[in-house]
C-alpha cells in the first residue's frame, strides 16, 4: 500500500512537471503570436494586401478614323482571346496540350505563341494563344479552364479596318507592341496598351489616337485571376483617344483602286485648295487585319517575299524617274530664267547632240526606220506633243543650278506633306552627285534631267503635289491627310505654308495650263498635231482637264531579277505616268498616276487618271 502511495505521488509529480512544461511551450507559441499579430501586424497587413490588391491599368479606347464622308476607316472591335500567363503555368507544353483539346489551335498559332513567349515582354502579361474565340469556345474554356492557373480569356478591343486592303496604305495600321517598342514607350501611358500605330496616320497621330490610360484596383486570387473591382480604393477612368476625320474619300479611293485593277502602281489625288489627300492608292495592297489578330508565318512570308511588294507603299515611299511629267516644270524654269518664251520655235528633227559630242539624244517618237521629231515646235507644242528635243535644248540653256533651284519650289527632293511619312526622292545637284556618286556633273546629266530622266527621282505623292501647285498657279499648300479631329491635337503645330512659286508670270501659268489642256483636248489636227493623250482620253470627256503624260525608262535592272527572264522583260518596260488636274480653270482635284512597267503614259496611265477624275467630278458617279 505504501509503495502504491509513493508511486502515485511520483506520477502526480511527473504529470505536474509535464503540464508545466506544456504551459511553457504554449507561452512560447503565444509569444510568437504576439510577435506576428501585434508587433508586426502592420507589415503583415501590407503584405496580405500586396498579395491580393493589384493596380490594373485600363487601356483607353483608341480614337476612330473616318473619311471625309464619315465612313469608318479604323474601328475598334471587341474580341475574346485565349491567353496564357507564362509565369503562372507549370508547364507550357502541358497547358497548350490541354487547351488544344478544348479549342482548335493550329500549329501556326502555337508557333506564333512560342515566338511571343520568347520575346521579352512585361512580366505576368497574358500572351495570346488563340484570338477571335467564338462564344462556344469561350464557354468550353470557362467550364473546363478554371482549374488551370494562368489560363485566361481576355476581352479586348482590337483595331479593325473595315475596308481592309483598300485603305491600308492610306490610313496605315497598328501592330502589336514588341520588345523594341517597350524600350522607348512611356511605360505608364502604355501600361494597358497592346498595339501601337506603326504605319501611316495610325503612326503619325499615335499621341492623339492613343488616349490616356486609366487604372483601377482589383482583387486577385493566388492564380492572378481578377475577382472583383475594389471601388473603395479609387479608380481613374481611361480617356479615349481622339477621333480623326481625314480628307480621304473612300468612294474616290475605291474608284482609283478599281481603275488600276491588277496593275502595279500608285495613285495620289489631292484637293488643290486645301492640299487634302483625297485618295492614296498603292497597288497591290494587303489586308492589315490578319496582322493584328496574328498572321500565320507562311502567309506573312508570301506577302513579304512577293516580287509585287504589297507591303511597300509606292505612293509615298516609292521613287521613280518622272519622265515627261517633269517637262512643265522645265518649261516654267526656262520662262523664269528668260531663255525661252511662248513664241520661240525650234525645228525638232528627232535628234539632239551636245556641241562636240557624238552621243545622240532622241525624241520619244524615234523608231529604227524613222528618226521621228515633231517638226516646228514652240513651247506650247513642246508640251502637248512632249517634244524631247525642245526640252533637251531648253534644259541645257537653263542649266542644272537654276533648274534644280526652280524645281525645288515644287517640292521635289523633299517630303512636303504635313502628316505623311514620305520619301524625299532625289532632286540632283552638282553637290549631290559629287557626294553620292563621287562624280562631277556632266552636261549630259542636265540633258537627261530636262526630260525627267537620269538622276531625278520622285514619289507619286510628289508628282501629285507638283500637279496641284500648277493647278493652283503657283500657290502652295502642303498635302495633308487630317481634315479635323475631336479636339486640338497635342504636340502638332502646322508649319506655315511655303512661299508661292516665284518666277512665272500669271500669263505663264495660264499658257502652261492651256498647253496641258491641249495634251488632253487637242485632237483631229493631223499627224503629230494632236495632244499626246487626246486619242486615249480626250475624245469623250465632259470637262476641261489639264494633264501631262510621262513614260519613264527603267534604266537599271535591279539585282535578283535576271534569273526570271519573263519577269525581267516585263520589268524592263517603261513606267507609265500621268499627272492631271480638273476642271482646268477652277481645279477641284489634282492627280498623279503611276503604272509600274505600264508602258506609255498617255495610253496606259492617262485613262486611269481620267477614271479617277470622272469619279470625283461627274454626277453619275456620285452614287457610288
Amino acid at each position, binding site marked *: 500500500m505504501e509503495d502504491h502511495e509513493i508511486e*502515485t505521488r511520483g506520477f502526480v509529480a511527473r504529470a505536474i512537471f*509535464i503540464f508545466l512544461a506544456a504551459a511553457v511551450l504554449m507561452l512560447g507559441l*503565444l509569444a510568437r503570436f504576439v510577435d506576428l499579430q501585434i508587433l508586426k*501586424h502592420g507589415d503583415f497587413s501590407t503584405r496580405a494586401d500586396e*498579395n*491580393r490588391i493589384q493596380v490594373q491599368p485600363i487601356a483607353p479606347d483608341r480614337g476612330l478614323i473616318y473619311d471625309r464622308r464619315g465612313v469608318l476607316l479604323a474601328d475598334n472591335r471587341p474580341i475574346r482571346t485565349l491567353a496564357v500567363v507564362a509565369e503562372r503555368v507549370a508547364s507550357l507544353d502541358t497547358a497548350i496540350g490541354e487547351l488544344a483539346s478544348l479549342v482548335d489551335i493550329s500549329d501556326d498559332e502555337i508557333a506564333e505563341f512560342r515566338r511571343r513567349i520568347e520575346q521579352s515582354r512585361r512580366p505576368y502579361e497574358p500572351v495570346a494563344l488563340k484570338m477571335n474565340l467564338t462564344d462556344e469556345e469561350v464557354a468550353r474554356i470557362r467550364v473546363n479552364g478554371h482549374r488551370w492557373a494562368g489560363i485566361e480569356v481576355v476581352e479586348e478591343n482590337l483595331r479593325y479596318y473595315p475596308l481592309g486592303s483598300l485603305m491600308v496604305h492610306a490610313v496605315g495600321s497598328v501592330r502589336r507592341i514588341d520588345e523594341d517598342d517597350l524600350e522607348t514607350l512611356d511605360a505608364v501611358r502604355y501600361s494597358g496598351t497592346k498595339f501601337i500605330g506603326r504605319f501611316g496616320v495610325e503612326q503619325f497621330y499615335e499621341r492623339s489616337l492613343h488616349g490616356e490610360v486609366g487604372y483601377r484596383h482589383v482583387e486577385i*486570387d493566388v492564380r492572378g485571376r481578377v*475577382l472583383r473591382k475594389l471601388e473603395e480604393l479609387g479608380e481613374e477612368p481611361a480617356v479615349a483617344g481622339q477621333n480623326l476625320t481625314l480628307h480621304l474619300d473612300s468612294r474616290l479611293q475605291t474608284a482609283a483602286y478599281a481603275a488600276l485593277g491588277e496593275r502595279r502602281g500608285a495613285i495620289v489625288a489631292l484637293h488643290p485648295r486645301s492640299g487634302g489627300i483625297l485618295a492614296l492608292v498603292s497597288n497591290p495592297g494587303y489586308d492589315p487585319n490578319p496582322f493584328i489578330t496574328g498572321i500565320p508565318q507562311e502567309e506573312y512570308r508570301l506577302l513579304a517575299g512577293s516580287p509585287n511588294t504589297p507591303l511597300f507603299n509606292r505612293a509615298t515611299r516609292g521613287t521613280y524617274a518622272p519622265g515627261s511629267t517633269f517637262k512643265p516644270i522645265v518649261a516654267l524654269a526656262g520662262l523664269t530664267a528668260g531663255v525661252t518664251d511662248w513664241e520661240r520655235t525650234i525645228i525638232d528633227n528627232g535628234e539632239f547632240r551636245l556641241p562636240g559630242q557624238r552621243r545622240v539624244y532622241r525624241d520619244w517618237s524615234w523608231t529604227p526606220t524613222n528618226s521621228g521629231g515633231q517638226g516646228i515646235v514652240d513651247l506650247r507644242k513642246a508640251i502637248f506633243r512632249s517634244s524631247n528635243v525642245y526640252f533637251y535644248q531648253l534644259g541645257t540653256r537653263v542649266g542644272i543650278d537654276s533648274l534644280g533651284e526652280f524645281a525645288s519650289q515644287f517640292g521635289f527632293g523633299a517630303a512636303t506633306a504635313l502628316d505623311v511619312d514620305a520619301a524625299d526622292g532625289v532632286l540632283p545637284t552638282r553637290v549631290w552627285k559629287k557626294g553620292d556618286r563621287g562624280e562631277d556633273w556632266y552636261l549630259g546629266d542636265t540633258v537627261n534631267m530636262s526630260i525627267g530622266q537620269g538622276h531625278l527621282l520622285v514619289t507619286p505623292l510628289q508628282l501629285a503635289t507638283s500637279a496641284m501647285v500648277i493647278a493652283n498657279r503657283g500657290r502652295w499648300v502642303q498635302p495633308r491627310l487630317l481634315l479635323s479631329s475631336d479636339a486640338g491635337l497635342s504636340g502638332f503645330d502646322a508649319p506655315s505654308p511655303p512661299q508661292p512659286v516665284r518666277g512665272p508670270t500669271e500669263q505663264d501659268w495660264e499658257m502652261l495650263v492651256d498647253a496641258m489642256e491641249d495634251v488632253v483636248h487637242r485632237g483631229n489636227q493631223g499627224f503629230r498635231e494632236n495632244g499626246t493623250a487626246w486619242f486615249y482620253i480626250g475624245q469623250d470627256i465632259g470637262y476641261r482637264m489639264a494633264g501631262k503624260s510621262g513614260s519613264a525608262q527603267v534604266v537599271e535592272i535591279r539585282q535578283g531579277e535576271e534569273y526570271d527572264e519573263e519577269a525581267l522583260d516585263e520589268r524592263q518596260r517603261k513606267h507609265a505616268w500621268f499627272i492631271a488636274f480638273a476642271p482646268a480653270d477652277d481645279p477641284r482635284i489634282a492627280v498623279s498616276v503611276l503604272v509600274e512597267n505600264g508602258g506609255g503614259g498617255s495610253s496606259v496611265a492617262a485613262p486611269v487618271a481620267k477614271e479617277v477624275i470622272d469619279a470625283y467630278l461627274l454626277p453619275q458617279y456620285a452614287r457610288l
Partner: protein
Amino acid sequence: MANDFVRQLSLPGASRAPAVRLDAVLCISILAAIVLGLVVHYRDPVTFHGQLVRMVLGFAILVVVARIEPRRYLPWAPTIYGAALALLLVVLLFGAAAKGSQRWIDLPGLPRFQPSELMKVALPLMLAWYFHDRRIPLRFRDFLVALAIAAVPVLLVVRQPDLGTGVLVAASGLAVIFLAGASWRWLFGSLALGVAATPVLWMSLRDYQQERIRTLFNPETDPLGAGWSIIQSTTAIGSGGLLGKGYRESTQSRLDFLPESSTDFIIAVIGEEWGFVGILFLLFLYLVILARGLHLATLAPDRFGRLLAGGLMLTFFAHVFVNIAMVCGLVPVVGVPLPLVSYGGTSALSILIGCGIVMSIHTHRAGRR
C-alpha cells in the same frame, strides 16, 4: 477517493450502470474546439458537411469507448500493437502513395486509413501494458525494452516517409516512459545520445525533408516553392492583428494564397479572422483539455490506466504544439493536423478514441472499487 470531481452524466431511465460515462469538463472543452472548427469550415459546404459527419461519428465512438472498462483491453494491448505494426509494414510494402509518400491503406469498401494514426493509440497502450506489472523502481533493462517498443514503429513511420507523424509517435512513447518513472539520468542520457546522433539522422532524411527544415530558417529564399506555405501562413496570422478581420473575411484563404487552409493550416485562418483574441481562446481551450486529462489520469485506479491516460493526453498535446509551431514557422512544415479543428478523418478519430479511453479510465474507477 474523497475528491471526486467527476460528474457522471446519467440518462433518465438508466439503472445501475450509467448509460453514458463522460467527463463533463473534458467533453465541453472538446466540443467547444470541434464547434470552433465547424464554424471555420462553414464557408465551404462540402468540407463542412464532411467534417460534421466525421465529428458526430467520432464523438459517438468516443462515447462507446468511454463505456468500455480499461481492464477489458489490457490483455489485448500486445495484439493491437502487433496489428498496428503489421499494418505499418503493409503500408510500406503495398500502400497507396499520396503526396510523395506511402501512408495510406486503400481497402475496397472501407474509408482510406492511415495505420500510423492507429499507432498513436497502440503504442501508449502497449507501453502501459508493458509497465503495468513491472517492479518499481524500474530497472535499466525495462527502460531499454520500452525504448525498443517505441523505436520500431517510429522508424517504420519515418520510412514512409512521414517525419511529422514519426515525431508524434515517438512523443507518445516517450511520454509513457517518462510517466512510468524512468530515471532522469536515463532520460538525459538518451537525450544526449540523440543530440549526438543528429548529424546521422540529418543524413538519413529525404531531400524534401531536409529542404523543409532549411526553408524553415529562411523561407524568403524560395518564396514560391517550399517557403510559400510559411510565408502565407505567417502573413495570414500577422494580418489578423489583435481582433482579426472578421468572420469569413480571411483574404489569404479566400483567395487561395494560404495552402491547406482547411486542413493543416487552419489555425492561420483562425488567426486571420479572429485575431490574437481567437488564438488565445483556442490555446486556452487546449490547455484546459490537457490539464483536465492529466488530472483524470492521476485519479486513475491503477498504473495501466494512469500511464495510458497520461500518454494519450500528451500525444494530443504534441499534436497541438507541433501543428501550431509549424504554422507559425517555428518548426518545419510536417503534415500534422490541428486536433479537433482540422478537416480530416483518421487523425480526428484517433484523438477522439484517446479522449474516450481517458474518460473510461476515470469513470470506471468507481466500478472497480
